[in-house]
């Protein structure tokens, strides 16, 4: 009995979401096939991005709000590749390759900054993502065209320079999702994307067993001890950031390839926020996250996303409520998760005390 309560307490966030989902899904009235199809789409669209968050957590750097930097790198690469009129899988591969140097640069920058702000990584990475967003906009609005040549008018703003609000990748639409895809009972299985995600998971599992992975875990738990054992703490942390940023870049390319268009000036921020929210919904915390958390999180969080507008409309008669609900949920989840993390830390401390008091009472009886 006690174990059950323990289990419930530990997994309170996912359990809450399972309950909310199991209420909302029936209300929405969507068919099972539709739901599975939608969840599958969103799973393949987002999983890679969320996986990119795992390594910084392992290195003790918390939730990497700086993953938006990687997403920006991905977007820049896509814009360029689209402008060069390259299509299909080669375009995706090229965009990935092209995003790497940008991601590495951004990751280095972010890692260096975070090394200066140890133990305040999350706030710092959040602020960095804002700052970088400004530079990114500058680049997209003014540098694209005059400095970096952009030819294609479908991408350029009508005024002659800068990038349009939405960049369409219709020609590349789901080229990876469709490769090797088949459908079972009306549910499309995008085999290649799933394989890529599986490969990524294997990479992370393997990475944990490498020397670098072990060093990151050591650094994540106690920097001073790691340093005195001869581990280069700063470098290790920077590498963690770089890996995460590069992965987020790839993730963004996959994401856009699935959506077939993206809004130039806001997707990356949303993507970052939703990825972090989903990971937290999956039961991860600031200092501990597993691959299981990623998938559970994606499924729960996006199930709610899918049904929220309809349920909102059904209950209040206003579709905007559902839309509002989505964004609200994401922020709320992040906030709650951060607060719960603190509370849990404190509870763990006082729990042992409670046990002692109980033991005392028992003895007296």
């Amino acid at each position: 009995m006690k174990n059950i309560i323990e289990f419930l307490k530990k997994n309170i966030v996912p359990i809450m979401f399972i309950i909310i989902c199991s209420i909302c899904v029936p209300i929405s009235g969507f068919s099972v096939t539709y739901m599975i199809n939608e969840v599958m789409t969103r799973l393949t669209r987002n999983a890679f991005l969320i996986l990119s968050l795992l390594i910084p957590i392992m290195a003790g750097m918390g939730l990497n709000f700086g993953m938006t930097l990687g997403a920006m790198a991905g977007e820049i690469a896509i814009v360029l590749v689209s402008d060069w009129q390259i299509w299909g899988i080669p375009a995706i591969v090229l965009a990935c390759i092209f995003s790497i140097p940008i991601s590495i640069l951004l990751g280095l920058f972010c890692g260096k900054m975070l090394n200066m702000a140890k133990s305040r990584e999350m706030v710092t990475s959040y602020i960095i993502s804002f700052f970088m967003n400004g530079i990114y906009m500058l680049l997209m609005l003014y540098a694209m065209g005059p400095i970096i040549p952009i030819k294609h008018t479908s991408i350029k703003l009508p005024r002659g320079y800068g990038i349009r609000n939405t960049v369409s990748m219709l020609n590349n639409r789901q080229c990876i999702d469709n490769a090797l895809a088949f459908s079972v009972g009306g549910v499309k299985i995008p085999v290649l994307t799933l394989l890529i995600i599986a490969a990524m998971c294997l990479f992370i599992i393997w990475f944990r067993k490498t020397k670098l992975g072990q060093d990151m875990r050591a650094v994540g738990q106690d920097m001073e001890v790691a340093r005195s054992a001869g581990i280069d703490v700063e470098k290790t942390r920077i590498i963690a950031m770089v890996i995460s940023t590069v992965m987020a870049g790839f993730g963004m390319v996959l994401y856009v390839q699935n959506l077939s268009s993206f809004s130039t000036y806001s997707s990356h921020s949303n993507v970052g926020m939703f990825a972090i929210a989903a990971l937290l919904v999956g039961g991860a915390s600031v200092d501990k996250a597993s691959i299981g958390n990623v998938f559970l999180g994606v499924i729960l969080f996006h199930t709610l996303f899918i049904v929220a507008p309809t349920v909102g409309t059904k209950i209040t008669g206003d579709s905007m409520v559902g839309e509002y609900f989505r964004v609200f949920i994401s922020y709320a989840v992040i906030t709650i998760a951060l607060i719960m993390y603190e509370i849990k830390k404190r509870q763990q401390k006082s729990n042992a005390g409670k046990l002692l008091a109980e033991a005392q009472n028992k003895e007296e009886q």
Partner: protein
Amino acid sequence: MANNNAPLLEMKNIQKSFYGNQVLNDINITLNEGDVLGLCGENGAGKTTLMKILFGMEEIAETGGYGGEICFNGEKVDFKSPFDALNAGIGMVHQEFSLIPGFTATENILLNREPLKRNVISEVFGDRLNTLNYNEMTGRAENAIEKMGFKIDPKMVIADMPVGHKQFTEIARELSKENLRLLILDEPTAVLTESEADALLQSIKSMSERGVAVIFVTHRLEEIMTVCNKVVVMRDGLVVMDTRAEDTDVKKITKAMVGRDVESVDNKSVGTDETAETIMSIKNLWVDMPGETVRNVSLDVKKGEILGIGGLAGQGKLGVPNGIMGLYEAGGTVVFKGNEIPLNSPRKCLDSNIAFVSEDRRGVGLLLDETLEWNIAFPAMQIQNKFLKKLFGGLIKWRDEKAIKEVTDKYIDELQIKCTSSKQKAKELSGGNQQKICLAKSFALEPEFLFASEPTRGIDVGAKSLVLEALRKLNKEKGVTVVVISSELEELRGVCDRIAIVSGGEVAGILPASKSSEEFGQLMVSKVI
């Protein structure tokens, strides 16, 4: 391999000064393979400094380097960092633990020296992407633990370990280094239980049988007599005695250390006044202090007495003051002078004029970067508005520098704190002298009630009686009720009126200090869990 006839280690004419303060004068030490050298000396004699020089600690170079010559293995060496020393085959176990809490013993033992397996990816991206060889890791860790001779669980996570096992994990880490020739242990037994300390001595013996030389710094002289074959005694930066262990004994060592005979503290206690009012009444106290759990302690402290709390390590005696002072989660009731004091709020305790000397001086004791004056006077100023001059009826206050200096100098004198001036920084003092500062700090508070937890930890034989005398003086002259917590029964019997023995997290019994050691011994083991 260098000259085989040369001794393993030769330190010649080692000199060291900190900003003009000469702390080591012409130290010469020679050590052969398998030697166990007992290094002892008064607080501030320079033992730790000497070891830091040998181990190439950066602190030494940062403060101006050292003079003299070190030959290791027949070659002249000059270590720029501990890593150079490690490579040469010197290991050191520091007083503070440097272990990763969430790693297992195995992972910690091989931290950053994990055996690796190459793979395709690491061929391209570099060695850090080699994977760990877990089988080999387990093998090596088990090997090191076996060498050590004290069984610890290689799969146990550090955070779940009792203090002693952490110390052993560190020792195993040094032993796992294949090329280890010399191991430095700086006061390793201070945190160990008696049986653990015995096991440590045992493993020092087995190391020496394998040809590893050991330098063993300790204030417990009997330990030196049990394991060492060489003894070096330092005083004021000089070697005053360097002999083989069989030619000396504890008494001679003590004499060499302090330059005079030290008589054991004799108790001048007049016994507790049973009719005195109860100043603090503790009921059903529990404290969740890792490794020192208190389960159910009820205890009355009489006004004006010196009460001792003794017991084996790990049985909860340290938890009692730490819980009452709010440093660890606690429950139960504590009534002080008729008012219940809320647990889990340190400030409330201080406000009600209760002071605490912590056994963990590194954690909560001192402001290491501040001067001695500041360390000693600050709490009194903060809490009691002492040492402040008032102007315009208290509207403007400023620090009374003169009074601060006076009180600091008084305690420097009384406790014989070894320092250059009252303006020296706390971190520049030797371990034992830092401990004295902690005591002075709470004396300056002139509290009504004082908890002194392990007040003589790390303090040399000569200065112990000084510290105890100071406690007694505080008790007699200022009427302070004192509770001394110590693992050394003899020390408690020397200074206390009554002694409560804590066993298994409960009070097993309270006896007057005059009762025999056997009676105390029986109480100590009566409820052990």
